[in-house]
């Protein structure tokens, strides 16, 4: 989802300890920061939570792009609140990752130099206002599919962060659907923009769930550890089933001619996204990869004097307090 293709780390720990750890997870006990955990569990989770956090932060960029150009003051206030939430979600998740012994600066640096990834979806541009509606509706909608089950994940701090995030995420999806509905019910030109946004963002949204289960090599260990709850294909199918009626309500055309109700399966059939495009975007060749990383690097570099200045001030004040005592 926001964390795609997270590589599971092999673990070489004492088999007895491992069995005890697995038994705790099977009993639905939460694992807490100071508890013993296998090295592979720790490393995999740092990667997964970190990737999730980076996605929340980078995800502000395509939406921030439209804050100054929102069509009304109300839409602008809503979008501003939504983007602020994304920053908050990133912060909750970074803190959860930090409980596993990685520092915030290390995580940030790994994003900035490309050692850690963020979701492929944020490498696509938001070309029109209708895209902002489609992002909230489809991208946040897809994220919710994955995040709701993750509230039950085995790692306590991660689970608690997901609970906070899910509480706020429903606002994101609903404001998006509301914005695109206005367009779909508007003038023919506006409706065309809504259709175009849906067409362009449909397959990238399906890619958010990651490659098909048959090509997904990292699932089994993560599912045993309950840091992944459903398979990629399960969640993707659920997303399609939920979204098709919402498209029909908007009276927009389906973005994929392959979408057909399959009576026998009780699900919609759909066309698989072009996975070669997905792997290309992950590798750094999507339409916006360079821009996104450049924007994050610039923000980090430009903010250095603020971070250093505030810390220097705090140290000086603390020293003065000690001297006065």
């Amino acid at each position, binding site marked *: 989802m926001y964390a795609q293709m997270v590589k599971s780390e092999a673990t070489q720990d004492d088999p007895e300890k491992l069995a005890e750890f697995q038994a705790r997870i099977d009993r639905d006990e939460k694992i807490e920061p100071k508890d013993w955990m296998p090295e592979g569990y720790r490393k995999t989770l740092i990667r997964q939570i970190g990737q999730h956090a980076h996605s929340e932060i980078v995800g502000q960029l395509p939406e921030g792009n439209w804050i100054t150009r929102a069509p009304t003051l109300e839409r602008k206030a809503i979008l501003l609140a939504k983007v602020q939430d994304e920053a908050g979600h990133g*912060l909750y998740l970074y803190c959860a990752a930090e409980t596993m012994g990685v520092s915030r600066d290390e995580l940030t640096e790994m994003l900035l130099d490309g050692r850690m990834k963020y979701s492929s979806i944020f490498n696509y541009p938001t070309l029109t206002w209708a895209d902002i509606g489609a992002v909230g509706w489809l991208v946040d909608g897809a994220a919710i599919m994955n995040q709701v089950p993750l509230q039950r994940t085995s790692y306590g701090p991660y689970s608690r962060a997901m609970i906070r995030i899910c509480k706020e995420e429903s606002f994101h999806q609903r404001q998006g659907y509301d914005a695109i509905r206005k367009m779909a019910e508007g003038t023919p030109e506006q409706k065309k923009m809504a259709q175009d946004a849906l067409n362009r963002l449909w397959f990238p949204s399906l890619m958010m769930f990651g490659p098909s289960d048959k090509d997904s090599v990292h699932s089994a260990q993560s599912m045993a550890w309950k840091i992944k709850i459903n398979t990629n294909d399960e969640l993707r199918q659920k997303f399609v089933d939920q979204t098709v009626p919402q498209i029909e309500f908007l009276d927009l055309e389906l973005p994929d001619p392959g979408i057909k109700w399959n009576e026998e399966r009780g699900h919609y059939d759909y066309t698989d996204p072009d996975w070669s495009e997905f792997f290309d975007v992950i590798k750094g060749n999507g339409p916006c990869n360079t821009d996104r990383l450049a924007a994050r690097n610039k923000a980090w570099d430009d903010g250095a004097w603020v971070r250093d200045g505030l810390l220097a001030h705090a140290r000086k004040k603390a020293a003065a307090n000690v001297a006065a005592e």
Partner: protein
Amino acid sequence: MKNEWPLWEIFIRGQHGMSHRHVGSLHAPDAEMAIKNARDVYTRRNEGVSIWVVEANNITASSPSDKGPLYEPSESKVYRHPTFFDIPEEVGHM
């Protein structure tokens, strides 16, 4: 850690006279900024009316391996719970 801001644990008291409750953590250069940041990160939807911030370094926590000695003794003391005692129905509500 070169110049990383310290970590603060954030506690919020909700609307209805409950105790402050731990809600999460954040980085800030000092206590004053920690409160300002906590207001933005943890109270965007009327979650609270009061914020406490404590630098994470200053918290001493019990260790998971002490679970047995610390908490097992209370398991055998069922008489500490009111339901341990049968009160005859004739006595009425107690």
